């Protein structure tokens, strides 16, 4: 997907990008893990509106995590927002 590729290109320290199905909603949901991301201990979704001029036809929500925060997600010390099901997420 172009959006994920663009983010990976902008941040070469990106280690993982996961795409989360939006359960029927027209929204792109990405979780990005980057070694360049500082640790806040929070999971904060950031929303963009659609931007057809830049080839992004749907709204998008991106969660940016440090590797330590990603570990805490995997060990369930930190939670993803409701509707973000890690079992159905796909790696990019």
């Amino acid at each position, binding site marked *: 997907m172009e959006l994920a590729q663009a983010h990976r290109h*902008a941040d070469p320290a990106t280690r993982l990008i996961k795409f989360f199905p939006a359960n029927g909603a027209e929204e792109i949901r990405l979780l990005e893990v980057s070694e360049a991301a500082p640790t806040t201990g929070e999971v904060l979704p950031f929303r963009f509106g659609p931007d057809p001029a830049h080839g992004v036809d749907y709204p998008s929500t991106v969660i940016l995590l440090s590797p330590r925060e990603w570990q805490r997600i995997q060990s369930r010390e930190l939670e993803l927002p409701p509707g973000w099901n890690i079992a159905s997420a796909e790696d990019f």
Partner: protein
Amino acid sequence: MAAVPRDWADPFLEQAREDLKAAWSVPANQSASTFCMLLQMVFEKLGKAAYARAGQVVPHTHQAASLLFAMLLRHPTGVALLQTNGNVRQFVAELEAAHPQVAGRQPQPWPQLEYPWEDPAAGTVFCPARDLPLARRVRDPRDRIALDCLKFASALEKQLTVIVP
């Protein structure tokens, strides 16, 4: 009894948190110039909070983010934070230069936050919502700079009391 510099630290930090909370909630690519203004305010207040925590009189300047980055370089936690993402530091420096009072001292025309500005030679008036180059970056969902800056500011807000005890 008048307040001492350190008395200003927590209020500046609290206000920075408030501005940061607002910045997280703004749909950045739909209100890009407002997002940029909020982000500049966050870093200015974080800088002033850091200055006050160090016991220094808070300077009447809109270039407090530069002071903040200089302070971060004096502490290992601050250095580690700055090393994470160089793009953020550059973007915040550009935001600071676009504050109207700072931009007004630059060769004109100079793009600025919050208020329209003029190209005196051409007689053209620009507005941030349409013409601010920084806002154009924020508006592009393929450019993650807005999120990178918010993440950095959130980390800094949480670690400021460690960096400047």
